[in-house]
């Protein structure tokens, strides 16, 4: 039940009909001018990625700053950052569905799209960091090859291949299944012949019959139930990539829960970064209300505190272990050559989000937008600190070295942002950014013609 002093999840006065018209209008109306500018900028950044990929394919990973001892540079930092961002989408669409949080309805669609595109960006990094990508296939994927070789399944890197590819597949089908009834809505609303044909083919003949909905509801609930343990497993496996190794700074049992919390933290920050301009530009403030922003701010605060606890435990364990390598790793992380990055990380990830305790900050769209970007930066710095400061000074002082990203490292990062935002802008232009049929179930509660005030899953 909604507490009366909170903002509503949907502005008053909407009926299933007007909700349908308003959300489908975003797709069916003329393209706004700002879209061309925004997509154009992202598309240029995407070209940078393609150029960098071509360069890397010709010359190899030597164009990056990686070398021994730091063999994992920005590629892995970016991979973990992107895959973490994806997690909020699955959390919103699966876990909040199972918990019957109706407020998730207006943000789940584009959060799922965000997941999909973030996983695409992440997958690109793991593929390209292997060096000779055309050979990577036989030791990453179990297929009968002419050499008679099979992958080594005891390695967390193999688990990672399966976890990330399963996650990408399930996220994609979950997202598409969610779209089917809305594609049928667009098929029925579209005025252009091309739109009718394309949306019609994608909707596959969906009619919204009682049988359709029944199987659909059961399938979505089961998918949500499957995606929930999946999303937890994915970042757990990603953390195993580090934690199973014996490198000081990586070899910690706190890693799985702390990585999952960090993933959700950065994911919600990204949902916030995307939804604040989106609701403004498309005039969707009635559907993505202050209630949504406040709830996301609270989740960010909670997961941010779990991350802070993770940092604290890492430090405590370094001291408590009595192991000189662990203790040196922590001292080097804070006071060593990358110390400034560590302090910046604490500022971005731990200190700034504490502002969210204040109701005034949670009610300010501008402040939330700024904090969400700060957290995004902070989470990127966290992965940099974990990957680079742990590797650059390990057991043998004679092999210590510094890692400096080259311009091609940065080109890949900027390019991956281009890939992500190009896909995101195509999505918000051609597909409904908010789940129309689920919004109808929320709007029907305020429909005076209907006495039915139950929530979206039909339960009071």
């Amino acid at each position: 039940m909604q507490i009366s002093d909170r903002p509503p999840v949907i502005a008053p006065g909407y009926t299933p009909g007007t909700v349908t018209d308003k959300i489908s209008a975003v797709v069916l109306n003329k393209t706004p001018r700002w879209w061309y500018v925004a997509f154009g900028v992202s598309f240029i950044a995407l070209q940078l990625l393609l150029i960098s990929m071509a360069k890397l394919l010709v010359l190899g990973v030597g164009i990056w700053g990686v070398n021994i001892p730091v063999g994992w540079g920005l590629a892995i930092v970016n991979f973990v950052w992107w895959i973490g961002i994806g997690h909020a989408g699955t959390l919103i669409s699966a876990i909040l569905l199972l918990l019957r949080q109706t407020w998730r309805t207006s943000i789940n669609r584009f959060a799922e799209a965000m997941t999909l595109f973030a996983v695409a960006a992440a997958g690109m990094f793991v593929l390209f960091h292997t060096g000779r990508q055309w050979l990577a296939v036989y030791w990453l994927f179990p297929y009968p090859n002419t050499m008679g070789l099979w992958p080594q399944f005891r390695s967390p890197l193999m688990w990672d291949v399966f976890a990330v590819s399963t996650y990408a597949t399930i996220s994609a089908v979950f997202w598409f299944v969610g779209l089917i009834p809305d594609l049928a809505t667009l098929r029925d609303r579209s005025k252009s012949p091309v739109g009718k044909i394309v949306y019609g083919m994608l909707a596959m003949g969906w009619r919204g019959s009682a049988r359709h909905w029944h199987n659909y509801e059961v399938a979505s609930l089961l998918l949500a139930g499957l995606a929930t343990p999946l999303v937890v497993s994915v970042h757990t496996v990603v953390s195993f990539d580090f934690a199973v190794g014996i490198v000081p700074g990586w070899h910690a049992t706190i890693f799985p829960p702390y990585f999952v919390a960090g993933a959700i933290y950065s994911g919600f920050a990204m949902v916030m970064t995307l939804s604040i301009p989106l609701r403004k530009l498309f005039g969707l403030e009635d559907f993505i209300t202050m209630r949504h922003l406040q709830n996301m701010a609270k989740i960010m605060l909670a997961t941010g505190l779990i991350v802070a606890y993770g940092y604290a435990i890492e430090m405590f364990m370094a001291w408590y272990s009595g192991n000189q390598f662990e203790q040196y790793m922590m001292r080097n992380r804070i006071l060593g050559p990358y110390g400034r990055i560590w302090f910046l990380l604490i500022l971005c990830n731990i200190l700034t989000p504490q502002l969210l305790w204040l109701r005034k900050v949670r009610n300010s769209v501008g402040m939330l937008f700024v904090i969400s970007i700060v957290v995004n930066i902070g989470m990127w710095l966290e992965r940099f600190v974990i990957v680079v400061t742990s590797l650059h000074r390990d057991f043998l002082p004679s092999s210590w070295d510094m890692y400096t990203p080259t311009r091609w490292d940065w080109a890949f990062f900027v390019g991956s942002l281009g890939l992500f935002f190009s896909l995101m802008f195509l999505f918000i232009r051609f597909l409904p950014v908010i789940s129309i049929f689920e919004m109808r179930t929320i709007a029907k509660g305020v429909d005076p013609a209907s006495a039915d005030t139950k929530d979206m899953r039909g339960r009071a």
Partner: protein
Amino acid sequence: MKSFLGRLFPRGGKPEFGTPGPRVAGGELPARLFGVIAEFANAEDLLHAVHESRKEGYQVMEAYTPYPVEELNDAIGHGPSRVPVLVLLGGIVGALFGFGLQYWTSVVAYPLNIGGRPYNSWVSFIPITFECTILFAGLAAVLGMLVLNRLPMPYHPVFSVPRFHLASRDRFFLMILARDPRFRAGETFRFMETLGASHVSDVED
């Protein structure tokens, strides 16, 4: 096995599918009645109409709504969904596949000594077994939902109903199919007009 598959994917007896009519010489298909459809303003009126039609003795009908209405599936007499069984099967197959793949490659096809671990290091095989379980079960949920809903289906007679595009906006439809043993061309039409519908029309095959 056959009876099990038969229960999962029964042939015939499905309310949504008419059998094709006899072809007339000359290639022209006669305008054959597929059913009668009535339009309602809200879910309560629709449910009321479903109950009334069932009371009247109609059995083969289908309802169309802009969002899921929970009671509708039971009211209209469709059985429980078979998606869960398919998901369970998918999950079991996925788990067996995932573990089997790792066992066979690591023990039979390409045994490798990795740090002195046993060839069958089943603990290390759990994450991939888990991922395969989720993958197969998830795909079974999606494909099962599509197959049980008979999708993709590019054409269906209801699409020719002029106001049917409102079923994806805010209107509710109930169709009694001509295949219903109780169906009589004029009588059913008049019966549906008594149910409080805003529009009633014939659906041609």
